[in-house]
């Protein structure tokens, strides 16, 4: 698979003291939804801002769409939705989209056609003539998505795209992201809402203290961390009696590192003890669990705060 974004040894030190990024290396392939996870201050936004030329890296190698990172004309093919974006409130949605489309170098005729299309896509076609100052946060977020998609970018960088959006809107955004990926767009998402990313994420990287703690597909990263879950009613024998390595909480037995054959005798034992089996299923590690595991690994390597690192680079 060809790499659309390739980052090698990205380093950013603010004021010679705060090491926001420490030799970050990662690769985003074409047609993927790549999720960038990490606690606050891990350097996620800094990395995205470096790609968008908003922050200057201390050092970086790599490319985006075949050009050196920082190459301004390449940004014509990149859409970006910043976190906590602030649109000029006195502009109408149409005016704002004309403004951002113009900044991308789109001719007026093309802008007019695309603006109508984009407003329709984000469910705001009735609001084009209204001032952004009158919009709710969720509506502004939709306009943010529209401006990021306006110039038909090959790559989308979205920083907290569902921030402030209602559940229906979130579902719509997830659907939109999947559709865009299927159409061949490459999407890099930076988000805290892990449950939302689970269904759409193809590849992820977990940043902790400015370093990549984990990177890979969800299948690769959760391999060996699947577990079987048996939900039952009644008085089950103790785990020692069952002779298994598992956890039993509120009528749910969780068994890690076992196969389907290993589960059968346990079901039999539970039934013979008079328990009613409600459900039995194999479950993958959730993104949140994966994230917490990555954090724990990083913490064990460097036991300090989860944010950016102060002082001399390590």
């Amino acid at each position, binding site marked *: 698979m060809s790499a659309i974004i390739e980052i090698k040894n990205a380093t950013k030190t603010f004021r010679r003291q705060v090491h926001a990024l420490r030799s970050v290396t990662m690769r985003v392939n074409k047609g993927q939804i790549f999720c960038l996870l990490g606690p606050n201050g891990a350097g996620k936004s800094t990395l995205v801002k470096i790609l968008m030329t908003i922050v200057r890296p201390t050092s970086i190698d790599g490319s985006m769409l075949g050009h050196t990172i920082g190459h301004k004309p390449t940004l014509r093919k990149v859409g*970006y939705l910043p976190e906590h974006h*602030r649109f000029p409130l*006195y*502009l109408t949605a149409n005016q704002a989209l004309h*403004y*951002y489309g113009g*900044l991308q170098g789109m001719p007026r005729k093309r802008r007019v056609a695309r603006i109508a299309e984009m407003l329709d896509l984000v469910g705001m076609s009735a609001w084009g003539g209204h001032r952004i100052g009158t919009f709710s946060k969720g509506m502004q977020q939709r306009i943010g998505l529209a401006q990021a998609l306006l110039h038909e970018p090959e790559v989308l960088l979205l920083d907290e795209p569902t921030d402030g959006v209602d559940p229906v809107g979130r579902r719509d955004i997830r659907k939109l992201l999947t559709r865009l990926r299927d159409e061949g767009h490459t999407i890099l998402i930076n988000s805290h809402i892990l449950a939302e990313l689970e269904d759409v994420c193809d590849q992820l990287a977990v940043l902790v203290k400015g370093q990549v703690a984990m990177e890979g597909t969800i299948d690769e990263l959760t391999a060996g961390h699947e577990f079987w879950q048996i939900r039952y009613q009644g008085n089950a024998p103790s785990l020692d009696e069952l002779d298994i390595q598992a956890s039993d909480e509120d009528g749910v037995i969780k068994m890690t590192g076992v196969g389907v054959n290993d589960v059968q005798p346990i079901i039999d034992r539970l039934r013979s003890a008079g328990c009613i089996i409600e459900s039995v299923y194999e479950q993958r590690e959730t993104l949140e669990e994966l994230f917490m595991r990555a954090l724990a690994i990083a913490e064990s390597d460097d036991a300090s705060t989860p944010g950016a690192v102060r002082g001399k680079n390590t």
Partner: protein
Amino acid sequence: MIPILALLRESWLTLRAERLFKVVLALNILVVFAYASLGFDKTGFFIFYGAWHYENEFIYSGSPLATTLYLSIYSAFIVNIWLGWIAAILALISTSSIFPTFLSQGAVELVLSRPPRRSTVFLTKYAGGLLWVGLQVCVFTIGAFLASGWRIGLWDPAIFLAIPLITLFYSFLFCINVLVGVITRSTLVALLATMVFWSTTFAIRQADDLIASRQFANQFQIAQIETRIGELLQTRAKIEFDGSSRALDDIDDQLARQHDRIDDALETSELLDPWAVWISRVRAIVPETARTIGLLQRSLERHTDISFTDLMTGKAFEEDDEQAIAEEMAYGEDDEDTRRWQERAQRRRASMEATMEREQAVPAWWIITKSLIFECVVLCGAILIFRRRDF
């Protein structure tokens, strides 16, 4: 080109949304109406479209003084005071927020993540800020052009020089505003810093003009004393020949007093000279805000038989300047106090004329070039900071 037009259009939409912009625009129109209310007829002049009429032997329809007065009111008062001070302060209040708002978190990312280079974005935003003043002055000068055509029959396109000159003058202040705005991202600090800078340039200009005026006055005083000493020596020679020792003593006393006065004047000169050098050096660095606006007056003066200087010094109202001086000299010639009073009056007028001539002698290219160099240096600094900053 499309991104630049997009940025300029956004600046225009920002202006349109600004309440203060609309208020100042309305005030501009009001000032133009007030200006147009002044008119002339065969016996004198009237104001407020004829509400008050004044008969005047010098100022009447078609008189050279009427043209000078009408253009002076435009260039020296309306442009200088209204556009050069009041409207400029209102513009500063309004435009001080342009860069801090643009650089605020969440807004700047939406612009800097686009293909245009940061320096292009910066300069276009800067030009957008100047659009505020440019548009206001544009509306104002159109009104003034129509008013002067209607009232004195002068359809002079030079009136439109106010647009580039006022915009240029404002840009000398706005560059400081932008520099501080880029550094601090605070509207208030940017505004205060600009006001302090403006006050400083004003103080430097006033100090320079004051010292120059004192130097001129001093030179005239020395010349007057020398003339007086010459006269006294002639009188003394005459008396010596006649042989009146009492009159001779009296003349000697007067001569001694004149020598004391000349010593005082020379002492003052020695005191002023180093200050004059120091102040003129400082003035050579700072932009010429007032002189830039003053260029409009110079340009309009070519249409008038009587100069603005003559109007300001009162010379324009005298039939014969030489004769007036002679009359002043003749009055109470032997009275020492009266003579002193006359000399003082002459010195005041002469130093005023010399100061004004000194102003007129400063070449326009020098005023604009050195101010533009200052602006370029400040803007280069601001662009450098803006280009290197992480947002």
